[in-house]
């Protein structure tokens, strides 16, 4: 299995046999926020082409994991490591991680009036292209590229000239996050509760966008509280976080079982 999931002692044993194609390899990651330990030893290996879902109750550390990997300040990495394509992820600044192909889809995308969407998208895309030694796109090439993706995400083209997320509804902000992901074509997309606050129609549009990225060159991590997103974006692996640990891993049936039995079913294992 290219994608391996280990917890506890199994992790170290698996390290030696982890597939060389591992895109992201997290080892025994422990993190504090404001002096409180939030992650208590996460080990997880994600291979190119895989879709992983990370589920868990509120406060289990799901979003912390996504944000630590993206480089958000304010987190104290107590111990452990994360390598991204063999590079020490934590030695890279957030913008270097992004340009290197790591994308964080925000649960609460911020509004930045005064910086328009087109400007941000083009600047972000060209920053990533420079990193890959590709020529920057001019305005015409950029528009050509972005138009098809806008259509896919069912966003009005006029939004390009509006401020980033300015006045957008919650659903529009999430669609914009996925649009950015599609334009940037990251190697690894960490989508932090992208499904929260979406009605069923918007959820389908967002899921369709995520599935469009899916392919052998891209890995996706869906951080989610609910199973319903996984009806539309079917994961290869499901992990359950509770109290800062991965307490159970499995395939998509694990999410269905969680839906039936609730998080109390696994929380007891975290406390043990």
């Amino acid at each position, binding site marked *: 299995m290219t994608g391996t999931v280990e917890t506890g002692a199994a992790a170290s044993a698996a390290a030696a046999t982890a597939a060389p194609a591992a895109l992201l390899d997290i080892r025994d990651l422990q993190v504090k926020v404001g002096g409180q330990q939030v992650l208590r030893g996460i080990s997880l290996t994600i291979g190119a082409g895989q879709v992983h879902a990370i589920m868990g109750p509120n406060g289990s550390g799901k979003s912390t994991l996504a944000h630590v990997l993206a480089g958000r300040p304010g987190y104290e990495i107590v111990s452990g490591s994360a390598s991204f394509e063999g590079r020490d992820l934590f030695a890279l600044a957030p*913008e270097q991680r992004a340009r290197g192909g790591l994308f964080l889809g925000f649960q609460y995308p911020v509004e930045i009036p*005064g910086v328009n969407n087109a400007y941000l998208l083009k600047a972000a895309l060209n920053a990533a292209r420079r990193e890959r030694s590709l020529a920057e796109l001019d305005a015409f090439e950029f528009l050509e590229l972005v138009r098809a993706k806008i259509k896919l995400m069912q966003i009005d083209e006029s939004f390009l000239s509006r401020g980033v997320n300015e006045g957008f509804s919650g659903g529009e902000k999430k669609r914009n996050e996925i649009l950015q992901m599609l334009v940037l074509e990251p190697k690894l997309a960490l989508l932090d509760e992208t499904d929260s606050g979406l009605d069923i129609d918007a959820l389908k549009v967002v899921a369709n966008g995520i599935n469009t990225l899916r392919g052998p060159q891209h890995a996706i991590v869906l951080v989610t509280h609910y199973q319903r997103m996984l009806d539309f974006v079917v994961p290869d692996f499901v992990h359950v976080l509770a109290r800062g640990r991965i307490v159970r891993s499995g395939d998509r049936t694990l999410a269905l079982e969680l839906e039936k039995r609730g998080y109390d079913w696994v929380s007891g294992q975290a406390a043990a």
Partner: protein
Amino acid sequence: MGAGMLTTAATAAPPRSATLERILSDYQAVASSLPDAAVTRDARTQAMRELSRFGWPKSSDEQWRYTNLRAFEAVAAFGPAALVPAPAAAPELPPALPGFERLVYVDGVRYHQAARAAAGLGGVAGTQWPAEQRLGLLCDMFASDVAALRISGTAAIEVLFLTSAAAAGASCYPRLQVALEPGGELQLVERHLGAPDAPTLVCANIEVVLGRGARLVHYRLQQCGLHTAFADTLCARLADESSYSVRQVAIGAACARTSAQVRLAGRGAALSWQAIAVGRGQQVHDTALKVEHLAADTRTEEVFRGIADERARIAFSGHIHIASSAPGSDTRQSLRGLIEGAGAEVDLRPRLEINTDEVKAQHGATTGALDENLMFYLLARGIDRDSARALLKWAFLGDVLRAIELPAVRRAAEHGAAGQLPDVMAVGALA
């Protein structure tokens, strides 16, 4: 101590400062040559008396605490740099605004005048400047000319006040009077330009009177050079159902002080004052705006955004007074300051006085550094830290810049503001 001594002490005028002595002396030297057409001799004399009574402002006065008075005191001569129209050589002017008539004043004196604006003086009675607007008295004393606009229909006029190299070391007194007849509509651009290479005073008076239902959109761009001490004193009075929209961009001058007072005197009158100030180096931009709600159902929207970079100092005092005669008043005040330099300072002072019931009032004032959440969002998209910082600074000013509806004026304001923020220019945020 005897009673007589006490009486003497109580009635004595405040001791004159050296600066005031110089002002009075300079005035006596030029008084006989100042044109009555701009300000009558009696009015000048009255202004001189008032200024003597108030005295030259001191930094210890709360109203003048943030003004760099030294920059004003460093001016070599308070007499006007020019008493007659400038020579025929055409000054360098910015591109004309499509659809606008243009008036040009060089060193406070009319250089060229379009036909419509020859409407003449009148409509604005001599303003009684209070102590907090006492620099208006200086302009009344020394003004060599006046741009007087009386508008009864619809008009679009640009008034350029240029300070020439010849004014270096002296003073210029731009004076602008605007009277809109009932129902009149005016788009007015007031722009101050010029960069003499020695300390120069530009001291402007702006008087506005709006008749019933009149609408004035007033764009104000202050782009003076860094040797200029700039003061503008504005007084506006609004009749029933009139509206006054001010879009002010202050980016130039070593020291700039705006003293403004707007009286919402008629029922339903509305003020929208949106302003930005951007300072670098050791620039000081200080604004004191007082709005008086004197009639029912009057409205104020006040937005200020200030960025202080390096060692600059930005201050904004927003005083809104709602009188007992103004039930149903609605005020919104949003003041925000961004401190970008280690030695920079931003001082925001919202003040709301309410003397009646049934009032809606929102106000907020925040000063600080760039929002870390916004910064991380841009970093997480691969934008480098310097560019992200520049973009967010630009976005910070966006509220006000976007409120400038005329594209040509907005471009001028944007380029002026971006010129103060070299990192913004570098990332091409204007594109």
